[in-house]
């Protein structure tokens, strides 16, 4: 069976510090991978998605970036965090092809102070 891991579970970082959140998927190959953010009281905002190694689509211009160094690894980064980067970050995977649902990881709660 497939599982998706995210770490860390919670993170408190000062403004201006770097960020690296990691997501890995087990039990599948060549998945589509996604990063979402849920700000307080808001819905799910798609940040990045990837259909393959090294292929990243950015949905929202901001100071975040994503990378996919391996087939089942997706990393969300920032060089300098802003207060507005606080939120709940969710990684998701989805099998290739249409009409497949996404499966979400447990999320990372990021607080920028």
């Amino acid at each position: 069976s497939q599982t998706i891991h995210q770490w860390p579970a919670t993170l408190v970082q000062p403004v201006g510090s770097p960020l690296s959140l990691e997501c890995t998927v087990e039990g599948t190959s060549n998945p589509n991978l996604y990063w979402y953010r849920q700000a307080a009281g808001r819905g799910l905002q798609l940040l990045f998605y990837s259909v393959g190694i090294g292929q990243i689509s950015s949905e929202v211009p901001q100071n975040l970036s994503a990378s996919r160094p391996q087939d089942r690894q997706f990393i969300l980064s920032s060089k300098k965090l802003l207060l507005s980067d606080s939120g709940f970050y969710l990684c998701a995977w989805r099998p290739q092809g249409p009409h497949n649902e996404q499966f979400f990881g447990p999320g990372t709660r990021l607080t920028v102070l």
Partner: protein
Amino acid sequence: DQQVKQNSPSLSVQEGRISILNCDYTNSMFDYFLWYKKYPAEGPTFLISISSIKDKNEDGRFTVFLNKSAKHLSLHIVPSQPGDSAVYFCAASAPRAFNKFYFGSGTKLNVKP
């Protein structure tokens, strides 16, 4: 420009009664719709989906209805249970962009015992 909208941020229902959660969309190209359930500090979990070739899909206590002419879908939960209390998100994707899901802002359901 939100293509998927959930206009009710919250809903309160008595245990045993029906819960009806609504979702509207603007993009007529959407052909696949999903509902997710999310507890606090956890990732969303897939609940039920429907393809645009159908107008109804049922899974146990959960039924999703799709009205393509009105660009509206709804999730019915019968009977509602206290454990159903969570935030519910609807999502949609289009054939030419099936890798990308558009999420609504969520409806918080509270089922009272």
